């Protein structure tokens, strides 16, 4: 076993997992507290990436773009909540799925009108576009390291907000019993707007951090959204702690599967079989994990009651 490769792959898994956590945290907050299935969460991720690309082009600096993108996506999230999601809270989940699916189509077309069909690219500042030698022989891209650090900071901020502040207390109360919180005189509409905006800003943060690695393009949020749903199902719907644990689990399993399965299978079977089976199994691994966890703990690893 090559230890340097193993450490590098673990860092890769950590980075993917943390990015997924940012997306899943917003999704699970919205679902757990507002009881709203939001398929358009991936669109907010896409909007965050497009904002980052535009602001980078305007200001000439990725750092300024980060500062501008977060409030901008928060604003978009709040507007979407006020304009179209507010009337959906009393409807059943199928209506919400239909409406938010419509939002996906709306955002995709809007982006096509504003930015055109070609993808955009986000250039990185010099100090982030190279790689660092963490230990002798262990070379890691500095930008991916920055993603890990920024995501961990965002996770700590979220923990502080939810566990240590008054608004966090209301969010936790809302997750346990919405009606009671409303009956106690809390402005639940305003709380919902804040929660949705916060979720949108987290999705925007994930989108803007993914932008320099991938192409900013139409529909970029849809594949990631599926993974984010897997994360919240495994973690337990409404639980931020569950989302954190399961996002890291999925990031690690996906990366380790892609990295080492071909060699493992190649050790037992002939090359042709390994070539065909390994990529198929690697892309299945996280869904297998989900199936196993759902079989033993249908409510997910952490349920919202104690999360």
């Amino acid at each position: 076993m090559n230890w340097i490769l193993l450490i590098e792959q673990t860092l890769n898994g950590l980075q993917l997992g943390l990015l997924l956590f940012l997306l899943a945290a917003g999704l699970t907050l919205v679902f757990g507290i507002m009881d709203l299935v939001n398929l358009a969460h991936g669109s907010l991720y896409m909007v965050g990436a497009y904002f980052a690309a535009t602001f980078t082009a305007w200001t000439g600096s990725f750092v300024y773009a980060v500062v501008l993108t977060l409030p901008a996506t928060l604003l978009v999230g709040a507007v979407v909540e006020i304009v179209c999601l507010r009337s959906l809270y009393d409807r059943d989940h199928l209506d919400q799925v239909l409406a938010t699916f419509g939002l996906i189509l709306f955002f995709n077309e809007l982006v096509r009108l504003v930015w055109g069909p070609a993808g955009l690219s986000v250039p990185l500042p010099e100090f982030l576009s190279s790689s660092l030698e963490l230990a002798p022989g262990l070379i890691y891209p500095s930008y991916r390291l920055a993603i890990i650090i920024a995501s961990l900071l965002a996770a700590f901020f979220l923990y502080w907000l939810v566990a240590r502040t008054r608004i966090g207390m209301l969010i936790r109360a809302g997750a346990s019993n919405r009606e009671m919180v409303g009956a106690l005189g809390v402005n639940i509409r305003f709380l919902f707007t804040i929660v949705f905006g916060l979720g949108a800003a987290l999705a925007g943060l994930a989108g803007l951090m993914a932008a320099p690695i991938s192409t900013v393009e139409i529909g970029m949020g849809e594949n990631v959204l599926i993974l984010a749903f897997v994360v919240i199902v495994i973690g337990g719907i409404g639980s931020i702690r569950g989302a954190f644990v399961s996002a890291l689990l999925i990031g690690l399993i996906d990366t380790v599967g892609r990295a080492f399965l071909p060699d493992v299978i190649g050790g037992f079977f002939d090359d042709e079989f390994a070539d065909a089976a390994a990529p198929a199994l690697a892309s299945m691994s996280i869904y297998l994990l989900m199936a196993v966890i759902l079989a033993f703990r249908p409510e997910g690893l952490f349920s919202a009651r104690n999360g």
Partner: protein
Amino acid sequence: MLKRTITLAAGAAMLATTAMAADPVKIGFVTTLSKGPAVLGRDMRDAADLAMEHIGARMGGRDVEIIYKDDEINPGIGKKVTDELVQKDRVDFVTGYIWSHVLLASYKSVIGNGPMLISANAGPSQIAGELCNEDFFSTSWQNDQTPEAMGEVLNQLGIKSIYVMAPNYAAGKNMVAGVERTYKGEILGKDFTKWPDQIDFSAELAKARAAKPGAVFVFYPGGAGVQFLKQYAQAGLKETIPLYTVFTVDAISLPVVKDLAVGSLATQMWSPDLDNAANKKFVDGFKAKYGRFPSFYAAQSYDAIMLIKAGVDAVNGDTANKAGMRAAMKKADFGSVRGDFTYGNNNFPIQNFYLREAIQNDAGEYTVKTVKTVFTAYQDSYHSKCPMQ
């Protein structure tokens, strides 16, 4: 009285010609117009529109109409829209097709049901081999050929070992088979990544770095190519391990990745700087109309319309005369933008392959220039499996 009769006769004649003109030659064009690869579909559609402009939208004395359909890079949807074109719109030709898996799914919907099928990009091994048909023509290549040319380039450069990465679908497998066929050095490892939704290659790049190959060979078309090139540079591999690609560095990805791709080498059967009259007219026309360089997808689509025109012209617009159209198309004398080529027994081109280098030209534009000819009049490896002679 006489004057009136003549007027009437003239009017009737005019009506007759209008009736003829109202019955245009119909071409169905299946490509990807939504989702990420929409930018490839746009290039193909723009090229077909330019070809229509250059021929005045006329073939064999008849008007021509192109019906564009979106396959959403999904074989199921590609087959569905192909069925619609053949059965509802009753088209005379179906062309387009970026993706091998979409073309394979749609193949039987066209072949044997009347229209002729011209692939403007995808070239799966099955259609070059046992599934070949007299009603199918390609204006592109068989998938394996371009990587075969790259394998030969790697031999000539004396590269001892390579690491291979490609997406896990029909064309990805063909590309890897192609480079394995001609490359004589050692292949230290290969990864097939999930397609089209895997966009993070960190795990595979870490393995490639650990394998310490002499070079990395990849095939990542469209937006995935942009992502790959950026991540390759961010991982610090651009400086340490040379990268050789097929269908990854092109007029679509270059304006996005810019300097990250400059200097990288790729093989292709066409290049915007090929010196022939048809190519000059095409490239200049495309740049003037759309303000950007055409990609090979565009070149092949332009050729597809010109190939169809050659067939329809030869039978004076009588598209029922398929034998006449096939014979004319098989001659491949329509003035291709790639220069002269011939058709093999399986109706895939026997053509040259060039080595291209990504550059920034004097005008500051990112484009490619031809370095040398790798293969001359090169035929694919599957033609012997095709029963047609």
